[in-house]
Structures are given as C-alpha cells and as structure tokens.
C-alpha cells in the first residue's frame, strides 16, 4: 500500500551530527532561547522596509491582528527539534530511570505524550507495556544471553551461523538485540539500510528474525550502519516521526523549508514560520480567517477538482478514513492498514468502513452500494444548480487570489514612490505609512478572498443574509477606498502632509472594517449563528 500526498513532510532537513555521528542526546545542547513570539519571529513585520523579502499576503500588519493570534509559538530548526526531543526524553528519564533509547521507543509508542507514558508506567503492568511497545523489558537482564548456538570446540574460535546469509561466522562478528536473535554485521547493515532507504522506516524497524517484533534502538543503528547517507536519512526519519506524531509540532508546509513550529495548544490558529509563510497550525493551509479548517479544505479541494491531477487522484486513490492521507492501492486484498505512523487505521478498501465488522462477514460492504450510490445520484441532480452558485463565489475568490499575486508590482511601485518622497525632504520614518497602507490592502484582500469561501458554505438564513449585506460594505468597499487613497496620496506631491493623513485615515478605517467583519464572524461562531451547506 503506497502512501502519497503527505504535504506536511519537508523535503529533507538532515540532522546536524557531531563528529561521532551521534544523535546528540546530551542535555547541554538544548537551547534556552528558542522562544520567539509573533513579533520577533517575523522580521518582515514591524517598521523595517525590505521589499525584496516581503511577500504580499497575510504575513503583515501584526499589531492589528486579532488577539487570538498573539499567543506565543516557537519556530524550531532541525537541531532545535532534536534538542526538544532530548529534553522530552530526559524529562521522562528523570522519573523513569530507563535507558534513553528505550524511553524514545516508549514515547514514540505513545505519540510523544509524556503524561500518558508515565501514567502507564506506574499505573499498570509494566511488562505488558513493554510488550505493547515492542521493547524487551529492561528489568529482565537474562534474555540477552539467550545462549546463541555457539559452535565452540576447544581451542577453535567460536563460530555461529547467520540466519540471513546462511554462512558460518566468528561469534565476534555476530550481534543482536535484547531479544537474542543474532545476525552477522554485514547482514544487519544491509537489513537496516534496506529498511531506512527503501521502506522509509525509522522508528519502527523490528528485529530481522521471523515473527520477532522487538524494535531496533538508535544505538544499534548507529553502531551497525556506517554509511553517512543512510545515517542522515535515519536521523531525518526519526525527527520526522517525532514532529508528525507530536500534537504540538508541525512542519512548515513551504517546500524545502526545514523549520517546524511548536505551539502550546494544537488548535486552529495562525503561525508564522521564519521563512515568512503564515499558515494555520491545525490544517497547514495558508491562514484562512474567517473560514474554518474543514471548510477551507473542502474549498481548496473543490477548486482543484477540475485539474487532470484530480481526475487521476480520484480514479486511483482513496483517502484514509481516519487520517485522510491519500492512498494508492498497489496490490493485496481489501484489508488496508494505514501506513501513516500516527494513524495505523484498519479499514476496508471498498466501503472505507472500519475493518472490524468485516472480520466475520467479510463482504458486508452493501453499505457502500446503498448509501454511497444513492448519494452520488442525488448529487448529480443537484450539481447543475450548485455549479452556478459555486462559480459565482469561485470567480470572485480566484480574482482576489490573482490580484494578490500582482500586489508585488504595487509594492515595487510604492517603494519607488517612497524613495522619491525621501528625496523631497521627507524622513524615512515619515514615508512608512505608504508601505503600511499596502500591507493593509493585502490583508484586506486576503480576508475578502476568504469571506467568499465562508459565504459559499453558509446556508441561507437570517444571519447569513446579514453577513452578505455587511460583506460588501466591509472589506469590499474598504479595499477599493484604500487603493484609491494610496494613488491619490502618491500623486499629490505638493501636499504630502495632508495626503499622508488622508491615506492613514483611509487605511485605519479599512482595517477597522476588516476587524469588525472578522469579529462579526467569530461572534457568530461563538453564538452558533452559522449553519453550513453540506
């Protein structure tokens, strides 16, 4: 079963290794000042002007954002992620006093939920826990010496047969995990390399023996594998699964951006990466206020629907019913087990229902035929009417998106204007209002863009009618006025001070309208005004 479309995985941030190729599990390397708040984390905000780095879009105008966006978050580099992982391991270690590699495997088993692990460690049968997490209990010391079949005649070098290459080797070349299965170094190395490079497994490599599910720990991997490319990938896999399994962490979705973001609460909220990308922590899409995550996901999917790629995806893949990862089935039966580390759902490929009820009456997928087929027929009938409605909102959404891309030009020309103004005896600080105006123009555009998505999914009722009335007089009008005022402001060269005030008045007004609109939507969320179309 292949797994596709994991957009959250970054290209390939490699771990920094020290000279020994060690994973750096020492406490000292943990960095103390990793905390960035919204302002210091994003250098393109504030008062600096650096147009080249500046992206048109939502990463601007911090001081006017809604209060929810001010909650602190951290941007972590790959090294800081490793440090964070070490801190987590050490914290557990202080209490649990187990080998660190064992703790890493245990923590991974609990998706890096420390409390859950500690609770289990002390509340219930520890041996059962070790069994579930596939580690040999560290309290039993005898198992490792599970008498390997040593062929030792007096005087001769003791030898053993490696079960993988079936050759007889000196015992010194053989090694194994605590489970007692021993293989020669060459086979171990080849086995681990295949697992890491071909299967992309890092956290959950099990012993090479048949039916043995004891997991290989870091130390063993570092000892047996010497190729730097494999080690780098192994460490990347470990970091990746740490980030993906940890609820409080996520990768920045920008291609080739190796940073991860850490938040105190894994809710729907905006975060801004060091690369400048501002996105929603919960769904990883560009920050989409006032629309909720599930709707923006549906919307974006809908917008992509027309492409050939979508046709291929819909013809050849399905989504995991639990974690929504896109899956291409490349063989085997209908019993699917999701390969996503943090999901592992069992389900039926035909009906996408849980596999459990299939166990006894394996093909009770009649559900699929009835509901799904009927839904498909109904949808077809409605689709004509729905299509027109969709096109209305989609066109407006797309227009704003296009314009947003062209806002770069506006930035360039405003920059020019500002330089010109500075030559007319205005100080640098005095001309900043223009850039500020464009920033606000952009954020208004983004908000406006998403209000179309929001409006599209709203079901008609009193509240939605109020919203639709408020919408155009809100950001729509403000946007228009804002851009007008910028141009009038920049063309009236001789009356700088008055135009300055004019532009500022306009953009303050527009920003005020934008905030009012967002507040209106959020108030609606709190009071359950909004009803959605399904």
């Amino acid at each position: 079963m292949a797994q596709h479309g994991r957009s959250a995985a970054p290209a390939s941030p490699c771990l920094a290794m020290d000279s020994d190729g060690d994973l750096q599990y020492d406490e000292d390397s943990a960095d103390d000042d990793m905390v960035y708040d919204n302002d210091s984390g994003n250098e393109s905000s504030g008062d600096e002007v650096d147009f080249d780095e500046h992206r048109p879009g939502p990463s601007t105008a911090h001081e006017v954002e809604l209060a929810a966006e001010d909650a602190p978050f951290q941007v972590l580099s790959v090294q800081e992620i490793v440090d964070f992982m070490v801190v987590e391991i050490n914290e557990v270690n202080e209490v649990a006093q187990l080998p660190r590699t064992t703790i890493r495997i245990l923590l991974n088993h609990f998706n890096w939920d420390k409390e859950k692990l500690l609770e289990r460690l002390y509340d219930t049968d520890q041996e059962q826990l070790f069994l579930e997490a596939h580690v040999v209990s560290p309290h039993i010391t005898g198992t490792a010496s599970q008498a390997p079949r040593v062929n030792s005649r007096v005087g001769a070098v003791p030898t053993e047969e490696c079960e993988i290459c079936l050759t007889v080797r000196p015992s010194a070349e053989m090694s194994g995990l605590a489970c007692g299965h021993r293989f020669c170094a060459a086979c171990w190395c080849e086995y681990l390399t295949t697992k890491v490079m071909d299967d992309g497994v890092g956290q959950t490599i099990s012993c090479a023996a048949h039916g043995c599910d004891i997991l290989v720990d870091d130390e063993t991997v570092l000892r047996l594998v010497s190729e730097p490319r494999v080690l780098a990938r192994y460490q990347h896999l470990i970091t990746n699964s740490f980030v993906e399994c940890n609820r409080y962490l996520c990768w920045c979705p920008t291609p080739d951006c190796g940073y991860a973001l850490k938040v105190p609460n894994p809710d729907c909220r905006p975060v801004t990466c060091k690369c400048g990308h501002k996105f929603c922590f919960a769904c990883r899409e560009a920050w989409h206020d006032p629309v909720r995550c599930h709707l923006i996901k549906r919307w974006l999917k809908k917008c992509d629907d027309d492409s050939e790629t979508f046709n291929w995806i819909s013809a050849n893949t399905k989504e995991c019913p639990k974690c929504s990862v896109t899956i291409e089935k490349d063989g085997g039966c209908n019993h699917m087990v999701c390969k996503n580390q943090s999901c592992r759902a069992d389900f039926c490929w035909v009906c996408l229902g849980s596999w459990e009820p299939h166990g006894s009456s394996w093909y009770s997928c009649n559900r699929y035929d009835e509901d799904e087929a009927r839904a498909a027929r109904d949808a077809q009938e409605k689709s004509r009417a729905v299509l027109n409605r969709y096109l209305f909102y989609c066109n407006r959404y797309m227009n704003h998106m296009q314009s947003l891309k062209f806002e770069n030009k506006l930035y360039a020309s405003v920059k020019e204007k500002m330089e010109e103004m500075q030559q007319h005896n205005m100080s640098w600080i005095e001309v900043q209002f223009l850039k500020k105006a464009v920033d606000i123009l952009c954020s208004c555009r983004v908000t406006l863009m998403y209000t179309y998505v929001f409006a599209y999914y709203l079901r008609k009722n009193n509240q939605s009618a109020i919203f639709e009335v408020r919408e155009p007089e809100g950001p729509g009008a403000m946007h228009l006025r804002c851009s007008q005022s910028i141009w009038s402001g920049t063309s009236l060269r001789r009356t700088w001070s008055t135009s300055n005030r004019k532009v500022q008045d306009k953009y303050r007004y527009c920003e005020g309208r934008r905030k009012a609109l967002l507040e209106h939507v959020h108030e609606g969320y709190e009071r359950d005004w909004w009803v959605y179309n399904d």
Partner: protein
Amino acid sequence: MANIAISRIKREFKEVIKSEEIAKSMIKVELVNDNYSQLRGEISGPPDTPYEGGHFVLDIKIPETYPFNPPKVRFLTRIWHPNISSVTGAICLDILKDQWAAAMTLRTVLLSLQALMAAAEPDDPQDAVVARQYKERPDMFRNTATHWTNKYASGPKAVPEFDEKVCKLRDMGFEEHTARSALSSCEWSLEKATETLFG
C-alpha cells in the same frame, strides 16, 4: 544481482534439496535463468483438501535486495482459492508483504503457501468471488476447487457434472477457460453464466 542475494539463493538451493519435504516430493524449486533472479517453484496440493494430488507451479522473482525484501511469488497454475486471484494468480499472504523477515527462506515461503492452501483466510480475500462461494456455498467451493485442480494441476479427481457444463458452453463457441471461469463465478448455473458471457 547483489552478492548477498546470490549467495543466499545458492545456499537455499542446498537447503531445499536437502530438506525432508523434497524427499516426499512436496515442494521443489528450479532455476529459470542463470542469474538467480527468476525461479520456478512447485508445490503439491496438501492432503485432505480439494487440491490434493495437484501440482501447482509458481513464478518466483528474486528482488535485488533479497533477502531483505520478500520474493515476488505468483501462481502460474490456475487455482480456485479465496486468497489467490483466479485470474492473475496473485497471492495475498502477509509474509510476502509486510510480515516478511530476512531470516525466512524459499522453503518457508513454499511451506507457508502450502499451509495457506490447506487453511484459507476468507476474511482477507484476494478473490472476492471465490471468497463469497467459500463462505456461502462451502460444498460448491470444494467441488469447484477440485474441478480446477483436475483441469489445471493434473489432480486425480474429476467432477463430471462440471465437466459436462463446461462442455456445453464450449459447444456454444466459448473458449474453455472463459466458460469455466464464468460457470465457477455464477454458482455453476448455465443460465447465469451464458448471460454474463453474452452480457
């Protein structure tokens, strides 16, 4: 091919040749070409099953990364079994997928397949049609499997009733195997089978 794969296969050959099963002519492995990347396996149908007395030929492809990845195995002989596709011979068996372990050998694979023939897993079917018959009409499943074994794997037991029906459809101008597949999938109802064939 990688050295480790070749030396493993060479050694495994010795193992299969030495093993007791080969003495009882239960399993067999032969080379197809000189580079050990493709092999031909053969297993005898296990006793007390519809496959008893049949000889089933398998296509075994050894991947470059063997034994760290499983061999690709498929039935060349047509077989009626819930976990084996009646059309392509593809097998759904955990040890040929994610449960493969490097310490397993061709001998264990062939023996596992023999075990699978003796004890099907209808809850994880590869061939849905066969699996349904296995669950709902066990007697008919046994007869169909015996009939297929007789026709394709030179099994000793014929099922005259089924032979007749296949003959009838063949007389109507259908190819023999097409006719047999259609009848097997349509619970041996001549009417339904003709319908699907013309459908």
